[in-house]
């Protein structure tokens, strides 16, 4: 390939959360609103009341067809362009759980109508039909860094000239399967999350979320660069305590951000050890950068969090102000943790990072073209 390829640009980006679309979610976060409320962890079967952010009117228990399908259809209607899923316009669907809530319902009540939503390929095929897409749909799933994998894979395809535009769609909607699993791991409990705050014990919340990004070469006002992945393969659920895995991931982004003044949108679920690790690594990699996390209000939207939070970061960058780190109190883990809303105008870009089970880390830089 001759010459330097044009940078891959973010042509369009959006999300849907219990607080609304990207502008509405951004505005709600700026106003200090939270999507989290206590919900029995197993839905109608009860259990501890844990902090969950469900789409308006949606119950935790799965329905057939899924109650979340309407949110995906609404999100799809906001995606510019068409002919998605045809060879020059591939789709990259990412998530952590797909329709796994349907499997739980299938096993509990035996209704076979849940089956068609139950596995990533079958769930994606149902969505493809609903949204009228063509067949070229890659499915990527790696827990909470799933969205980043879709962005990277789509970037490579566009970069190589194999597509004119690529659509990355990421979604995760809660179910007793998911909530019960995190509750069994004892990180989802009755406490509400306080990301990047010191407190006696950590806790996460979970939230419904979906997001999309359209990538193209040289068209659009915003650029994704320095996309980096690193997998520690240290432990199934925890990171290396010294933070070296996350630091390795941030090296690639730091190079892309050289000479820029950036702010840092962290993962920040509300667990203590991971939060401390993230704050320490981000502070070392990007000295002076404000650190912010939004899962204290949205809950952890799991595999979709990378795209949901990219859409909010984009709103914050366009609008000149970022929501602060919501939570119910406690001292911040470092001075750089931005508790209050702050202006983004003085900054050249934002580093967006996500972490996942197995010490998986992912990050990229979003900046104006």
């Amino acid at each position: 390939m001759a010459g330097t390829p044009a940078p891959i640009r973010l042509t369009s980006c959006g999300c849907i959360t219990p607080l609304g679309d990207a502008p509405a979610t951004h505005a709600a976060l700026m106003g200090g609103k939270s999507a989290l409320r206590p919900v029995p962890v197993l839905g109608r079967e009860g259990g501890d009341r844990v902090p969950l952010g469900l789409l308006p009117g949606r119950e935790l228990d799965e329905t057939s067809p899924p109650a979340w399908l309407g949110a995906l259809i609404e999100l799809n209607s906001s995606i510019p362009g068409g002919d998605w899923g045809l060879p020059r316009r591939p789709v990259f669907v990412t998530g952590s759980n797909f329709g796994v809530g349907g499997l739980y319902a299938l096993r509990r009540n035996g209704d076979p109508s849940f089956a068609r939503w139950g596995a990533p390929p079958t769930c994606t095929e149902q969505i493809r039909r609903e949204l009228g897409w063509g067949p070229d749909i890659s499915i990527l799933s790696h827990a909470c860094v799933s969205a980043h994998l879709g962005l990277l894979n789509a970037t490579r395809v566009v970069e190589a000239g194999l597509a004119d535009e690529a659509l990355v769609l990421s979604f995760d909607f809660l179910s007793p399967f998911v909530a019960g699993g995190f509750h069994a791991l004892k990180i989802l409990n009755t406490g509400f999350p306080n990301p990047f705050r010191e407190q006696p014990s950590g806790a996460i919340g979970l939230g419904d979320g979906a997001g999309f990004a359209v990538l193209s070469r040289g068209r659009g006002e915003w650029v994704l660069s320095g996309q980096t992945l690193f997998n520690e393969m240290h432990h199934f659920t925890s990171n290396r305590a010294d933070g070296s895995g996350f630091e390795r991931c941030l090296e690639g982004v730091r190079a892309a951000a050289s000479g820029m003044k950036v702010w840092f949108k962290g993962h920040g679920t509300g667990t203590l050890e991971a939060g401390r690790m993230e704050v320490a690594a981000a502070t070392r990699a990007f000295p002076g950068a404000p650190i912010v996390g939004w899962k204290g209000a949205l809950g952890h939207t799991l595999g979709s969090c990378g795209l949901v939070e990219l859409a909010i970061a984009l709103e914050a960058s366009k609008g000149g102000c970022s929501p602060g780190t919501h939570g119910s109190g406690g001292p911040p883990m470092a001075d750089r943790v931005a508790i209050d809303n702050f202006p983004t105008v003085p900054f050249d870009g934002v580093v967006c990072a996500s972490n996942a089970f197995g010490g998986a880390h992912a990050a990229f830089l979003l900046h104006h073209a």
Partner: protein
Amino acid sequence: MLERHIQVLATDAAGPESPAATRERLKGGFPPGATRRMTTLGLLVGGVLARVEPGAGDPIVYATGYGESRTLEAFLDSFPTPSPTLFQTSIHPSAVQQLMIARQCPVGEFLPLSGGDLLSFHALRASLLSHRERVIMCGGEETGTWLLEHGLASDRTFAFAVALTSGPGTGSAGTVRIHEADGQGSLPMPAFFDLMHGRQGFDGMIAPGWRLELEWH
């Protein structure tokens, strides 16, 4: 056109072998104690992956339509007191993680893919687009029980891993190319596995607009 050279290939056609027999056959290839919590798919994928010797800098592209079906079944059956261990290991890419965590071997880029009839194409495209000289592509399925009855698990058990390089090297076993072309087609994962396991050549459409040429030397 995207092209890579096949340097090392390992396959495991477990066929109708029971999970217990698979465990017994493969457990010697893993550190003592590591296999107790490993899934059948973890043993199979881990077994073939170990044979292609992934290095710390090698990206891994992992393709499985249904992942840890038996563990997923067991996790669902563990409610209303869900098992944290089964939750961890039922998560999509855990088969690769089971080996790499046992070896404490970090991986830069790890791209786990799922899918239906186009999964082998998407995994090949992701592998061939890697920026690294050497990339590992692996995949596999394990049969389910009640999930299979609902079409939510594989009806075959197999695994493969292949090390692909940008240059031919001195002893490459074959070449894989994909390029844009007119036509329709698909190559489901079990059919792709059969090509790899049997070292069979292929020249045909594997996705709408995409052709695969697989040659063995």
